[in-house]
Structure formats: structure tokens, C-alpha cells
């Protein structure tokens, strides 16, 4: 049985019915077990709810259940015969922007919920902006609570056109609108008889069918070296393999390659795995490359093709989301950086602007970024990084920043290309 995997993020607050929607997807696709449902029914009853509160399925931590909120990113799993799904369930409030950024970083698709009565709110715009900033290829606007607007086509169209106007300012490749009622299950798994005017897919059908294969970058060959395998045993005396995960493009035996930052070139002799050699390696495969020539390669180096590779670069220009509540991003600060398999130190040179995530207004006078704030900054690194623009490659275009005193992950960055002066 071969099924594809689709990772999607959901954003919205409890009021939008996000947890109810997820509960509905799990429940109607028969991914909820009886003991989980029984526990939720008991809790709902205890809390005096009139119907089973499907939101309780996803709010797992004690504090969340007590306060009736989602604090952190929760991962949920379900599958249909077509696909296995990983849901990154993220809270919607502005104070949890960092959680949404986290959940969005690996998503193929994002579902943004809108309450049909309230229409496009500030937070819907913020969620869509974050989805586009993180370059999630597919965005679904689930217009929820359609039951409370009498399943009105006019209301749905009104919201659709308002959101489309806003989305023009963003870089969203694929935008889909679905009228749903998570509470009653309309157009979630089953088509609704209450929306005969709606001719599109149900939410689950869309999740099963949306085309994701072409979202991968199969053009720019990128192989960050993770680990050098040297067995030293009699059987593999001269074996030297470079283990890693393909971050872009396709590698085949016989390909001419160049190793960065040294610039040495060679050819791929073999692509090894535990299960035997393979004819090609592409994202997101974990393989071991064996080269024809003995050259000095270590963790943090990158194997690419001769006429398509990033230029080693110490000057970085990036959109940054600040994740830390105890410190700020400000010019002059020094931090550790993780980028692909390479780590280095960076100096924050300049904060060009801070972005208002609700209005997209750029504040050029800002001098720092605090928790949940997003802005554009330049950095100088101690080592050259082998980076692509984030819009071209999410794996080689992303980095995280680490506080050197606390070891906490404090920033997430998306590279914009070479900084001026490099």
C-alpha cells in the first residue's frame, strides 16, 4: 500500500471553531478511537457542554484543558487510503504568532478559518500573511459557521471577494475557499445538502487531491553533508561515504559535482543506502553519496552541481520572526546560527524595518524586534553559509538563531538573497 504524506497547518482561535474542525476531520474520517471519544464526552459533560466538545481532543496539556485554550503547536495524525496527514494545530492569537510560524515551517498546506458571521478579520489577514511568508504552497480559507448565516451563498461570496482583494498583496500560489460548518460537518468530509450552490470539493477531498508533488524543488541539486561514514573495517577498508538528506534537485551516479565551500569537484560514484545502492536521490531522501575522488569533505559542507550552486556568503539579509520573550533582536547582538548542517555565529548588523503583521505596514524607525515580531534584518556570519533564497528553497533558505547564554531557540529566519555589500 503506497500513500503520500501531506503536512498541513491550521490557524484560528477557539472561537473560529478550529479545534472543532480538526475534531470533525478526525471523527468523520474514523481516526478517533472510542476511548479518546469517551474521555472527551466525560470532560464535556463535566464542563457542562450541551454537545460533545470535539475541541477537547486536541487540547492536551493540563493548562490548556483548564483554560480552554490552545497554547502550543499540537501534532495530530490521521490517514485515508489516499494519504497520511500530519496536522500542525496552532493557536491563532497574535501572542502565539511564533507557534504558528513553527507549525507553518514544514507545512505543504495551511487552513485558515474564518467565522462566516464576522468575515475577514485582522487575525485572518495575519494568518494568511504568515502562511505566505513561510511559503506554504497551498492555502485553504475555510469559511466556518455557515449554519449561522443560513448557508448563504451571498455571504460566502462577499467573504471570498474581500479576502481575494487582500491576498493580491501576498504571494500565494494556490488559494481555495470552502464553506463549512465544523459543528455539523457540512462540507468537511461529507458534501452538504445545505450548500447546493457550492460546486467545489469538501475539505477532506481537497486535502486528499491537492497536487503537492511539484512543490518540491527538483532543479537545484543541494546535499548538505551531515555525517562522514568511515567504517575502517576489513570489508570496507577505503570506504568514505557522505551521509545526508537531499535538500533540492536530483542526484544520480555519474553526475559531476562540486563541493562547497572548498570548490573541489568530483563525480558521484554511487548512492548508497542500507537497502542497497539507488539510481537517483531527491528530496527528502536520506542517502549516502560516495564520490570518485578522495577529497576532504566534512559536516557542514554542501555537495552541488558545478553550474548551479549557492555562493558562499557571510552577509545575510533575511525576514526574521523573533521567538523569545526574554530578549530582543537588536543591532550589535551576537547569536549562534543553525543553517542546514552548518553552525556559526552571527552579528546583527542592521534592522531595516519591523513589519506590522496585521496591516503589513513597515516601520523603518524600529530599533528592535521583540517576541512574535517580524522584520527584515542583515547579519554578518563568522563562516560563509551555503544558502539559497527562501522562496527558491525552504530547506537551504531557512535558519534558526540561538541565544548563546541560554541555548534557547530565539529567532527564525528566511533568507532574501545576498545582502548589499557582499
Amino acid at each position, binding site marked *: 500500500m503506497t*500513500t503520500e504524506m501531506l503536512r498541513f497547518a491550521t490557524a484560528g482561535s477557539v472561537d473560529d471553531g478550529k479545534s472543532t474542525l480538526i475534531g470533525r476531520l478526525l471523527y468523520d474520517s474514523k481516526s478517533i478511537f472510542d476511548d*479518546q471519544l469517551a474521555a472527551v464526552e466525560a470532560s464535556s459533560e463535566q464542563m457542562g457542554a450541551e454537545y460533545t466538545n470535539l475541541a477537547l481532543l486536541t487540547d492536551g496539556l493540563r493548562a490548556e484543558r483548564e483554560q480552554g485554550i490552545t497554547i502550543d503547536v499540537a*501534532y495530530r495524525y490521521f490517514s485515508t487510503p489516499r494519504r497520511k496527514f500530519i496536522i500542525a494545530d496552532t493557536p491563532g492569537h497574535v501572542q502565539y504568532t511564533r507557534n504558528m510560524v513553527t507549525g507553518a515551517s514544514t507545512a505543504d498546506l495551511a487552513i485558515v478559518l474564518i467565522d462566516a458571521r464576522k468575515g475577514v478579520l485582522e487575525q485572518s489577514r495575519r494568518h494568511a500573511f504568515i502562511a505566505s511568508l513561510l511559503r506554504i504552497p497551498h492555502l485553504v480559507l475555510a469559511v466556518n459557521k455557515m449554519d449561522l448565516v443560513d448557508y448563504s451563498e451571498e455571504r460566502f461570496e462577499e467573504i471570498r471577494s474581500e479576502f481575494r482583494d487582500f491576498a493580491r498583496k501576498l504571494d500565494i500560489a494556490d488559494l481555495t475557499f470552502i464553506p463549512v460548518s465544523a459543528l455539523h460537518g457540512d462540507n468537511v468530509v461529507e458534501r452538504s445538502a445545505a450548500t447546493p450552490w457550492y460546486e467545489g470539493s469538501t475539505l477532506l477531498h481537497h486535502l486528499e487531491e491537492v497536487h503537492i508533488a511539484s512543490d518540491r524543488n527538483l532543479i537545484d541539486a543541494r546535499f548538505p553533508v*551531515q555525517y562522514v*561514514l568511515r567504517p575502517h573495517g576489513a570489508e570496507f577498508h577505503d570506504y568514505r561515504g557522505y551521509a545526508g538528506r537531499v535538500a533540492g534537485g536530483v542526484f544520480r551516479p555519474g553526475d559531476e559535482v562540486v563541493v562547497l565551500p572548498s570548490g573541489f569537484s568530483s563525480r558521484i560514484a554511487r548512492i548508497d543506502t542500507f537497502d542497497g545502492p539507488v539510481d537517483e536521490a*531527491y528530496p*527528502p531522501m536520506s542517502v549516502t553519496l560516495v564520490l570518485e575522488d578522495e577529497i576532504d569533505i566534512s559536516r557542514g559542507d554542501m555537495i552541488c552541481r558545478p553550474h548551479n550552486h549557492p555562493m558562499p556568503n557571510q552577509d545575510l539579509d533575511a525576514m526574521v520572526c523573533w521567538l523569545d520573550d526574554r530578549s530582543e533582536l537588536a543591532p550589535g547582538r551576537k547569536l549562534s546560527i543553525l543553517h542546514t548542517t552548518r553552525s556559526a555565529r552571527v552579528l546583527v548588523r542592521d534592522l531595516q524595518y519591523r513589519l506590522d503583521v496585521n496591516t503589513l505596514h513597515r516601520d523603518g524607525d524600529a530599533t528592535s524586534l521583540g517576541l512574535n515580531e517580524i522584520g527584515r534584518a542583515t547579519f554578518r556570519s563568522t563562516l560563509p553559509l551555503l544558502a539559497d533564497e527562501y522562496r527558491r528553497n525552504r530547506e537551504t533558505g531557512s535558519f*534558526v538563531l540561538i541565544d548563546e547564554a541560554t541555548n534557547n531557540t530565539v529567532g*527564525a529566519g528566511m533568507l532574501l538573497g545576498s545582502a548589499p555589500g557582499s
Partner: protein
Amino acid sequence: MTAGLSHLRELEAESIHIIREVAATFERPVLLFSGGKDSIVMLRLAEKAFWPCKLPFPVMHVDTGHNFDEVIEYRDRRVAETGCRLVVASVQDDIDAGRVRELTGPRASRNPLQTTTLLRGIEEHRFDAAFGGARRDEEKARAKERVLSFRDEFGQWDPKRQRPELWHLYNGRHHPGEHIRVFPLSNWTELDIWQYIAEESIELPSIYFAHERDVFRRDGMWLAVNPWITLLDGETVERRVVRYRTVGDATCTGAVESSAATVAEVIAEVAATRITERGATRADDRASEAAMEDRKREGYF
């Protein structure tokens, strides 16, 4: 056009990437191995990550002393096959040294005592990273845990102060005395594990398949008769055809009635089942709604 990976191959590639990252960036990792199906799959993934080299780290078994013989025999065989070093951290040693007190009574289990032994093992061997086979689909507190999960100098997990984990960039930095738990199987479900076992023809301890066993009914579960458990009034021993869905301490891990004798039959059963594996067969998780969260805070697996 290059075909996409199946979900199992994508999960495999992700797990191998995680295991290699940790081996490359930590000084003294260890892989926690219980002989349960999840740690068996994790061990296979570690073998794959470093082939043709041997594992660059040892495996550790936190041994409650209340074992299924079949599991210990399996453990020793796999350790010999992979050529890795086995470290056994024994709960009995902690009882003998007075670090923990053995619970008494018919419902006594050594399960809660494991946390002390696990943390002692990590400390004694100065392990800075411990691979665990926990999955996020197992339990609601686990659904919120990071792939690389920070533990302070007391081994504690603080769910509210977890490090954000973005893309495939894993921050394992820590100060001396602190350590990181690593969960390469975070994104796998029970069904994924079984499908992978089938696809890879991985051998499992025989208790995972239907067999006849002397059992008795307690708290809605079938518990095996063994030297460490005392029957309560009204409990009677019956011979039934059962199998285990999880492998834990023999005193608190229940069996389910099942005729599934092969991996394919188990997959059919798992696909159709209506109760989670922990809900069905683990008394340790039933203590309260937040039982797992509380134990994890203290340093449990």
C-alpha cells in the same frame, strides 16, 4: 519525472536525518531499547543511518526486572546482531540502594520507579542525548513534545518552556548536567510502525502475536499471571488466546484477546480497532487525564 516517496519512506528518511544529526552534534548519545516494537523500529532506523558503520552509540535497557522472557531473549539477540554495546540500568539496583522504595500490594508496579533508574543511568554514563521511541499519536501530552526535547539538570520536562522547533533544524544545545531526549519516531503512528515492520520484514518478540497464556481480568484488561503479581479476591485465572499491543513492565501491561498471528493479521486488526493501544492495555496511563504529562515532567520516557 521522479516519483514521490511513500509515506513510510518519507517517515524513514526523516527519522534517519534526526538520528544522524544527533550523532553528529552530541558527544555521548544513547538509544533507549526496551524490546518493544517502537524501539525495535528505532534500532533498525539507526542501523540504516550509519551503514556500513556500526552504531556510533550504545543502547540502554531500563530493566524493571519484571520482564517477559521472550523480550529479553530478543534483546540480547539483536544486540549481538548489530554489534552494539548494551548498558542495563536496573530498577532492582535502585531498590537495593534505597534510592526508591518498592511499592507493595497486589497492584504494585515498578513502572513509576523507572524514572529514577533512567535518570541515574543517564547521569552515571554522562549521556547527553537519549533516543526514545515515543510517538506523538500515543498520548495527548506527547502530541506537544518536540523531536529534540530539553531536560534540565533534574531530568524534568517543562511543557510551557519548550524550544520552538522549525523546519528540520534541531537545536540540541545544553549545559553540562542537562540532556536532550530525542524522539525520531515522533511523526509515526501505531499503524505506520506495523506497516513498516511488514514492509521491512522486521522480526518481533513472539508476545506481539496471538498465543495461549494464563491470564486474569483486572480493570478491563487481561493481565498475565507472573511471579510478581498477586490475584485479588474474585479474580480467576483463565487460559486465553491473547497478544500484546505494547511491551512494558509485565505487571501493568495488559494483553488483548486476539487471533492475529502474523504481521498482516495484526495490521488488519490495528486498522479496524477502536481503542488506542495505551488506553487498551496500559494501567500506568489511566491514573488520571494528565497521567503522562505528570510523569513526563518528572523525567519519564
